[in-house]
């Protein structure tokens, strides 16, 4: 019985997929009723389901699909046009099939629901336009199930013996649909005739040449033969369609062949295993560095490379197009709009944009919720739209794209927008804000009030013309996966919701900090900037309101919280305590900016998040943990939890105006082009392009040794090579021999300072950013201080190449003269 259950399962999975496609196809057909390819695809789907359920002894399901198929034949042949009522009936059929499949899935057979009325409607829809050939709705179709069982088999038998001619298939595809004027019975006649002649019946069935020969039927055939004939015709056609698919649209078929259905559980296991392999790799690489064994180095390098590629590949398998989350929306919008008496077109862009499966699952419900809201409250009734001078059909626009390592989804409509007056009144009425406070809020702030929990209750749904049903839940769900939500609305013109979500939850870039000797990871998505203040400046710039520390960041007060205090590792600091050097991580979480004071800022890294056990559920400040390259565990901070714990989000510290952008973000400061390079240890460095002469590639064999230096012949000159060490100070170190012996060319940034030329070897040249505004003076002013910027959502160090190179080149010059 196991084998049979497997077949059923397979059938269900396939059918559900097909049904989703059917929904899409039918909706598309409403707009373009004579899209032959889609009609053929719809027909094929229904036929497949029908064929299989006859095989699996599901008579009811078979009956519904059979009648549906009968209706689709004239549609496909262009005898019937797909009108709205027909589409409704067909969609109803899809729902009925889905309902029955669910019953089958739960092991209750096909269920006891009566689908005869639907069958009658499907019959009626078919016969409606050709009133002369009305079938009595009670036409005996009981022979169906048995006939199907035998039908395809009988039809396929001669085909397998006959030689398959590929040429005529092409001619079918070329045949314009308008020529296809045969009626159902006509077609069946043709088929019968061809079947009699016994050659290539499937191709001939659709050939226009046969039409003149076929007698024009004036009356319907007697019931019994008629019943068998379309049956045969259908299976013939299905087969020819199938052949169309394999012959004409070859790419489509090969796509099906090239994909494998996989259990998600297996995939998750693979992802976990790769995660562990990465950790093991990190340990091996670390170990190989401590030995001088050349083969060991080579093997570790190779392992390194393969693991990275494997990781990338496996992560890709979890990526799915956003279409999978959107797929059901057109149907939802159509049904909902119809029930509200609205006319709405849904447009989608960037459906192929890929995102991790877990993220996709997490945004499915919020998305549905938002779209429901748009239809419900956003887009107005046609009369109202006309009165406002807009076309009666509203447009709901979905757009997805990648930006800066994140996925952006925009949901916009051309509806009425959010009336801030009503929202304001509602919020005051519900006691969410005081009327005094309300008068100070900007329009945009008012719009965002709809995200307040409890704003949307049943009563306000009808009163507020904007959105608001459970938007707080939507916001929470999106923030749960590290995303954010923005809303822009113009009264009378429409609303745009912008959702930003991370591409994957599995691997995230973090900033590593140290406090009280322990490492903690801060997700970079919330990171704004890093500020270091020495004890002298700290004395002036850290101010206190009673015992609460504040920092003046560009003349705005930034509340500070100390990580060690939050973790209970240090008693609260008080006003008057002696100041010390401070490392402030400026963060944005839960709508607030704050500074997190840590002992040390260590590094940036990409990590795999692992959840914490139940013992830590009550602690708001951790988002999870990860295993570092050295095998030790590092806790990941939950910034929203930390902000709440530290009282940042309490009313007192609330800030309505965001702190001004850092000067290098503003337009006034000097801007320059930056070369972004990868150092190989996941850290990025930006080099001002003005100091770069050329980008070159050298191979290992070009490199020679001269004293303590590695050198290369470059344009008749001997130039030394350096590399940038991974530490935060960005010191230039002598180019290490570790890079040697590699096959890959060495990417080298050639720098010229007057007569002196030097090369800096980097792992990879990533990007050149033009007009990147850069702060004129390095923080702190001394040469060793590196600046940090968040570029493309990643912490990037900007190094002052000239200063570093000057000292390095001096050593080179000294060594040279000494030699």
């Amino acid at each position, binding site marked *: 019985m196991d084998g049979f259950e497997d077949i059923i399962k397979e059938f269900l999975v396939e059918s559900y997929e097909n049904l989703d496609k059917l929904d899409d196809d039918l909706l598309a057909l409403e707009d373009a009723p004579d899209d032959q390819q889609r009609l053929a695809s719809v027909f094929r789907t229904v036929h497949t389901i029908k064929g299989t359920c006859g095989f699996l002894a599901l008579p009811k399901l078979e009956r519904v699909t059979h009648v549906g198929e009968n209706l689709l034949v004239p549609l496909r042949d262009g005898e019937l046009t797909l009108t709205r009522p027909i589409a409704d009936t067909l969609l109803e059929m899809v729902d009925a099939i889905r309902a029955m499949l669910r019953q089958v899935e739960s092991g209750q057979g096909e269920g006891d629901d009566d689908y005869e009325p639907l069958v009658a409607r499907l019959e009626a829809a078919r016969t409606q336009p050709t009133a002369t050939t009305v079938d009595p709705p009670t036409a005996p179709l009981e022979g169906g199930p048995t006939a199907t069982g035998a039908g395809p088999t009988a039809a396929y038998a001669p085909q397998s013996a006959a030689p398959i001619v590929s040429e005529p298939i092409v001619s079918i595809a070329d045949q314009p649909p308008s020529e296809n004027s045969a009626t159902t019975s006509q077609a069946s006649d043709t088929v019968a005739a061809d079947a009699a002649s016994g050659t290539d019946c499937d191709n001939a069935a659709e050939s226009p040449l046969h039409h003149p020969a076929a007698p024009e039927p004036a009356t319907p055939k007697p019931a019994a033969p008629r019943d068998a004939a379309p049956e045969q015709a259908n299976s013939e056609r299905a087969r020819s369609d199938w052949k169309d698919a394999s012959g004409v649209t070859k790419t489509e078929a090969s796509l099906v062949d090239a994909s494998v259905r996989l259990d998600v559980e297996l995939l998750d296991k693979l992802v976990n295993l790769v*995660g*562990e392999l990465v*950790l*093991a790799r990190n340990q091996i690489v670390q170990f190989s560095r401590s030995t001088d064994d050349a083969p060991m180095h080579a093997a570790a390098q190779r392992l390194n490379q393969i693991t990275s590629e494997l990781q990338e590949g496996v992560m890709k398998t979890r990526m799915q197009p956003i279409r999978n989350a959107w797929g059901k929306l057109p149907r939802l919008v159509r049904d909902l709009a119809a029930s509200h008496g609205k006319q709405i077109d849904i447009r989608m862009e960037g459906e192929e944009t890929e995102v991790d499966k877990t993220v996709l699952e997490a945004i499915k419900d919020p998305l549905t919720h938002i779209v429901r809201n748009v239809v419900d409250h956003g887009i107005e009734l046609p009369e109202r739209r006309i009165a406002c001078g807009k076309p009666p059909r509203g447009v709901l626009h979905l757009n997805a794209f990648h930006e800066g390592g994140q996925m952006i989804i925009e949901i916009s409509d051309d509806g009425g927008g959010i009336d801030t007056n009503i929202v304001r009144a509602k919020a005051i009425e519900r006691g969410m804000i005081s009327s005094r406070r309300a008068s100070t809020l900007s329009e945009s702030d008012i719009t965002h009030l709809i995200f307040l929990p409890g704003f949307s209750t049943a009563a306000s749904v009808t009163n507020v013309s904007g959105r608001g049903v459970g938007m707080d839940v939507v916001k929470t769900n999106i923030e749960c996966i590290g995303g954010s939500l923005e809303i822009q609305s113009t009264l009378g013109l429409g609303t745009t919701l912008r959702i930003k979500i991370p591409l994957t939850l599995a691997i995230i870039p973090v900033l590593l900090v140290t406090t009280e000797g*322990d490492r903690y990871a801060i997700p970079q998505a919330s990171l704004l900037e890093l500020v270091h203040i020495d004890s002298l400046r700290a004395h002036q710039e850290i101010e206190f309101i009673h015992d609460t520390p504040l920092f003046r960041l560009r003349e705005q007060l930034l509340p500070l919280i100390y990580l060690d205090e939050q*973790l*209970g*590792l240090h008693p609260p600091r008080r006003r008057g305590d002696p100041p010390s050097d401070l490392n402030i991580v400026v963060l944005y979480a839960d709508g607030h900016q704050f500074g997190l004071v840590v002992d040390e800022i260590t590094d940036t890294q990409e990590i795999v998040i*692992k959840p*914490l*056990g*139940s*013992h*830590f559920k*009550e*602690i708001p*400040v*951790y988002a999870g*943990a990860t*295993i570092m390259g050295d*095998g*030790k*565990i*590092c*806790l990941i901070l939950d910034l929203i939890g930390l902000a709440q714990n530290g009282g940042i989000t309490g009313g007192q510290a609330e800030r309505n105006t965001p702190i001004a952008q850092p000067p290098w973000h503003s337009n006034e400061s000097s801007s320059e082009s930056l070369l972004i390079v990868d150092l190989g240890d996941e850290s990025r460095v930006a080099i001002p392009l003005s100091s770069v002469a050329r980008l070159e590639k050298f191979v290992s064999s070009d490199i020679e040794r001269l004293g303590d230096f590695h050198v290369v012949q470059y344009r008749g000159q001997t130039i030394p090579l350096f590399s940038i060490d991974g530490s935060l100070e960005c010191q230039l170190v002598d180019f290490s021999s570790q890079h040697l012996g590699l096959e890959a060319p060495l990417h080298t940034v050639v720098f010229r300072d007057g007569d002196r030329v030097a090369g800096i070897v980097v792992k990879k040249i990533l990007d050149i950013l033009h007009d990147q505004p850069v702060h004129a003076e390095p923080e702190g002013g001394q040469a060793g201080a590196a600046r940090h910027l968040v570029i493309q959502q990643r912490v990037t160090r900007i190094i002052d190449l000239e200063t570093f190179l000057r000292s390095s080149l001096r050593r080179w010059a000294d060594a040279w003269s000494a030699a």
Partner: protein
Amino acid sequence: MYTTTLTRPESYCTFLVDGLLYGIEVQKVQEVIRAQPTTRVPLAPQVVRGLMNLRGHIVSMLSLRKALGLPARSSDSHEMSVIIRSSEGPVGLLVDEIGDVMRVDQADCESVPGTLHRRQRPFLRCAYKLEQRLLLILDADRVATATATD
């Protein structure tokens, strides 16, 4: 009063904590290893000693002494950890010393007396009367989710 919850002879992985002999069904025990350095988790309940990297899995290490309200260890001899399979994945229990795997006769099983301190009672399922001493059977799932802080 004989308990009827167990119907066949059971094997227990036994260990000593503060001189008392405890047992957990062998099926629930994943492995026994020497205690390793852990990463502390500030703000966590006191019963949590820290997090350990067990071949790429993050395992919470719990002090059984803390969970059962027993005094802290005086000697600094090596602790052992019993990794148990709980409903939430592996959890490590820190114990003093590992005993044998014992097969016991269910006829010797008795429920724990009501006079037992309520601090320990939820964690103990029953006690086996061995010849020399009592074997106290722990409810692995309850111990694994213990959050007692005092």
